[in-house]
């Protein structure tokens, strides 16, 4: 600019100034150290304290690792080998590796099955987690995975999961079929289905009312139990009164819906899946299996253990609790006071009590609430309780996502004439879920860590395995650091990777097209 006359204000640049490197100041390690470690008296003190801490931890732990014994059959042998030196006895990990990872009852020749299931989990999860990198077609893998994994881990005939998957697909086909029917055809169908469903419902209500009266008569109306006595009597009478009107109404409603197809399609599809699951599945899968036997050795649930149990509980419960959480979140947003109230009470109750008490419920109480002679095995009861637990937390995350959606999205959907189900499915949920994913992943990590609590109710997950069969065995009676350290390491690796993924996702969402 120096050649521009000062008094001449008008100026037109005729040539670009080329970029030049920044002025060289002192660079390199010394500058970095001075700026980052010793930039003032306070920082210097902090640095020195930190260095001291690191050095003392490393120097304390190093010999323990360095002297570690990897080959021994018992803790006594370990002590003999160490001969008084400080050192770890990693031999327990070698000796009890199978127990720590698979539990002590999973058949040894089937260890490959959970391993394959785990590797497939990575493959199946990838398209769902990294939607942009993998083609969408791979989502089919994700859909198939639960059935495959069930078969691999629990064994039995492959036909069972295949047929369950088949029934679900078939239900979808029934749905489409009914939807596509001509209106007069659908009216006939709706008449039949409405009649059946109405009668069935009335019968169930009749049973329920009888049950309520039975409860009331068992409570007896004296002393403190007057209120529950009255409540159950009243509920019983109420239900008796409702039997016939409800049956008629529901039947009628289904019949009425024939024109636009709504209810009758859903109910028929549900009927179809119920009949398939309840009556066709067992015999058909047995028949298929006798023709083409595709069978793995069946492993009962209670034989699952070790880290594998944590993984099973974690993945199953998170997967199940997402849909449940969506329902709860939508219910909590509802303007119907009763439905909203039920959801709020459920969510706040579950979030207000520790998981461990819910596990106690699974362990010692649930049996009293189920019909006599139903035998839910412990793992199933635990899955139910943990799913309830995490669904409440996921519901809150999703509620946050729903609240973050602008009101205009609801209005636009309404003004286009979409109904509640369509708008929720096509407009609201896809956006709300996307916002909620990092939160859901955080809940999932927390839940995965909480699966260790099942050790408190005598299940042999990795912590239960350590505290039970390993520490109480004759060979490894007082071994702590090595096994707990190993368990901590396993959890760290899994949880850290997931939380890194979650952070990556959050960054992705920030730069997303929105």
């Amino acid at each position, binding site marked *: 600019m120096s050649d521009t006359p000062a008094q001449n204000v008008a100026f037109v640049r005729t040539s670009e100034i080329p970029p030049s490197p920044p002025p060289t100041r002192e660079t390199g390690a010394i500058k970095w150290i001075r700026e980052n470690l010793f930039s003032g008296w306070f920082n210097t003190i902090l640095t020195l304290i930190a260095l001291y801490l690191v050095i003392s931890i490393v120097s304390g732990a190093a010999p323990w690792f360095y002297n570690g014994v990897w080959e021994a059959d018992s803790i006594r042998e370990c002590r003999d080998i160490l001969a008084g030196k400080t050192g770890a006895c990693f031999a327990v990990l070698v000796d009890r590796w199978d127990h720590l990872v698979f539990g002590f009852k999973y058949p040894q020749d089937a260890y490959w099955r959970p391993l394959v299931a785990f590797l497939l989990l990575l493959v199946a999860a990838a398209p769902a987690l990294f939607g942009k990198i993998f083609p969408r077609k791979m989502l089919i893998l994700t859909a198939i995975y639960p059935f495959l994994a069930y078969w691999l881990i629990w064994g039995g005939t492959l036909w069972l999961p295949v047929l369950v998957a088949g029934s679900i697909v078939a239900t979808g086909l029934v749905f489409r079929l009914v939807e596509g029917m001509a209106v007069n055809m659908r009216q006939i169908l709706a008449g039949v289905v409405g009649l059946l469903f109405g009668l069935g419902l009335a019968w169930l209500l009749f049973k329920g009312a009888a049950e309520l009266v039975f409860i009331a008569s068992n409570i007896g109306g004296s002393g403190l139990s007057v209120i529950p006595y009255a409540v159950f009597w009243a509920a019983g009478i109420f239900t008796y009164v409702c039997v016939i009107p409800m049956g008629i109404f529901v039947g009628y409603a289904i019949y009425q819906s024939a024109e636009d197809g709504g209810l009758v399609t859903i109910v028929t599809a549900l009927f179809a899946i119920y009949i398939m699951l309840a009556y066709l599945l067992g015999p058909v899968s047995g028949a298929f299996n006798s023709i083409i036997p595709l069978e793995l050795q069946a492993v009962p649930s209670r034989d699952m253990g070790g880290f594998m149990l944590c993984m099973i509980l974690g993945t199953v419960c998170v997967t199940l609790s997402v849909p449940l959480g969506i329902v709860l979140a939508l219910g909590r947003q509802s303007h119907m006071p009763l439905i909203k109230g039920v959801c709020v009470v459920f969510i706040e109750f579950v979030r207000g009590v520790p998981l461990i008490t819910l596990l106690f419920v699974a362990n010692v109480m649930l049996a009293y609430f189920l019909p006599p002679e139903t035998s839910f095995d412990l793992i199933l009861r635990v899955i139910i309780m943990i799913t309830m637990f995490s669904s409440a937390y996921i519901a809150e995350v999703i509620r946050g996502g729903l609240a973050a959606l602008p009101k205009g999205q609801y209005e636009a959907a309404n*003004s*286009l*004439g979409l109904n509640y189900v369509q708008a929720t499915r096509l*407009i609201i949920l896809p*956006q709300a879920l996307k916002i909620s994913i990092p939160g859901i992943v955080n809940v999932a990590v927390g839940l995965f860590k909480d699966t260790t609590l099942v050790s408190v109710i005598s299940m042999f997950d990795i912590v239960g395995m350590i505290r039970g069969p390993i520490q109480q065995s004759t060979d490894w009676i007082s071994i702590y650091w090595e096994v707990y350290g190993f368990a901590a390491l396993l959890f760290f690796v899994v949880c850290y990777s997931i939380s890194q993924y979650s952070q990556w996702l959050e960054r992705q969402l920030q730069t997303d*097209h*929105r």
Partner: protein
Amino acid sequence: MAEAAKLQVSDEVAITIHNMNKWYGTFHVLRDIDLTVQRGERIVICGPSGSGKSTLIRCINALEEHQAGSIEVDGTLLSSDLKNIDKIRSEVGMCFQHFNLFPHLTILENLTLAPIWVRKTPKKEAEEVAMHYLEKVKIPDQADKYPGQLSGGQQQRVAIARSLCMKPRIMLFDEPTSALDPEMIKEVLDTMIELAEEGMTMLCVTHEMGFARQVANRVIFMDEGQIVEQNEPEAFFLTPKSDRTKLFLSQILGH
């Protein structure tokens, strides 16, 4: 103005609003609204903020409920019967101030969503219709982009096209240009003018007085929940009768 006269207005009644009232809690937002709209009529509603003009048109497609009086659209009475509401909504298209495009869907998907799910149009057919309207609003090349990648004016034009895909007989516009930069207002207004020239029945809440002069048959001025004055645009702008209208016009045209 001359053009406006050319546009056809039939004798058929599109919307009848009779003695309609609405309250938010104890606040009386709409008071005794009476309005009849002929098919093909283009009405501009203006007024200061909080005068109830948005609420009025939102009542017409049941985004807001009215508590007293009646609204009849194309002979269908707007009652609490959901079937009637669905019918009216499929007759009436709406454009919002903030476009309200669905950000997780591409432009094409935004356009075909309602035809496929509400009208049960086959997907292919719906896409053809969508492309037709995209060409009409002059952005067919953006079909596979997401709304976030478009400018505000383009987004609003997509929103108009989205409404048109449902083949509505009436279009409602709720301040369609007030969230836009000046450069983009014109492209949206051009689209609306084009639509008006095709004879669409339109109710438009806007402060674009130029637009009102050019296409409206009638301008309605609202204040404090009431219709204060309505007239043909020329008369409305040149010889307003009410003092309130004069004040409003002097403020809005003054600068």
